[in-house]
């Protein structure tokens, strides 16, 4: 599967839930490439912006979409990677601030 195919597949699944891909499609495709690379080497789509432990159990909170996506999008309008964002974030109504790492807080 290519990043473009994954993009189309996930877009249909996630938008109805209120999660939109970042309008910066180049970044999104890079992050989706990262997910595909992690699927290849670890066997699961570990977050492309976090260091995998290469241990399914240890990484289960950061399988994409990670468990932190909901609180991060609620607070910042974007997930940690800027992969998934809110409609308002994409419309520029929410400032594109760095999303700090919530994991381990």
């Amino acid at each position, binding site marked *: 599967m290519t990043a473009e195919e994954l993009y189309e597949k996930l877009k249909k699944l996630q938008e109805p839930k209120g999660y939109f891909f970042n309008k910066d499609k180049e970044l999104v495709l890079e*992050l989706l490439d990262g*997910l595909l690379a992690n699927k290849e080497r670890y066997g699961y789509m570990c977050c492309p912006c976090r*260091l995998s432990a290469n241990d399914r159990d240890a990484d289960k909170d950061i399988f994409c979409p990670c468990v932190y996506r909901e609180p991060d999008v609620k607070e910042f309008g974007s997930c940690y990677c*800027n992969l998934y964002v809110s409609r308002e974030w994409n419309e520029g109504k929410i400032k594109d601030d760095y999303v700090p790492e919530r994991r381990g807080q």
Partner: protein
Amino acid sequence: MAEVRLFTLSTCGHCKRAKQFLQECNVEYACTDVDLLEGKEREDAVAEVKKCNPKLSFPTIIIGDTVIVGFKEDEIRKALEK
């Protein structure tokens, strides 16, 4: 010019942009894609990152004695100008 050291992940778009930004600024830097390391080498790199960024998040950018976590262009620019 202060020494510039980057710890990154090969799968992270923000890490890639941090490297691109430094290249555009014609800044020399040493960079390690921690996810591509294995065994002892990986352990040592993780320990080094944790020393200055206990959260072990990426990119971790060290410019002289300034540590910047995340691709924050303004902070990087300021640290380079020091």
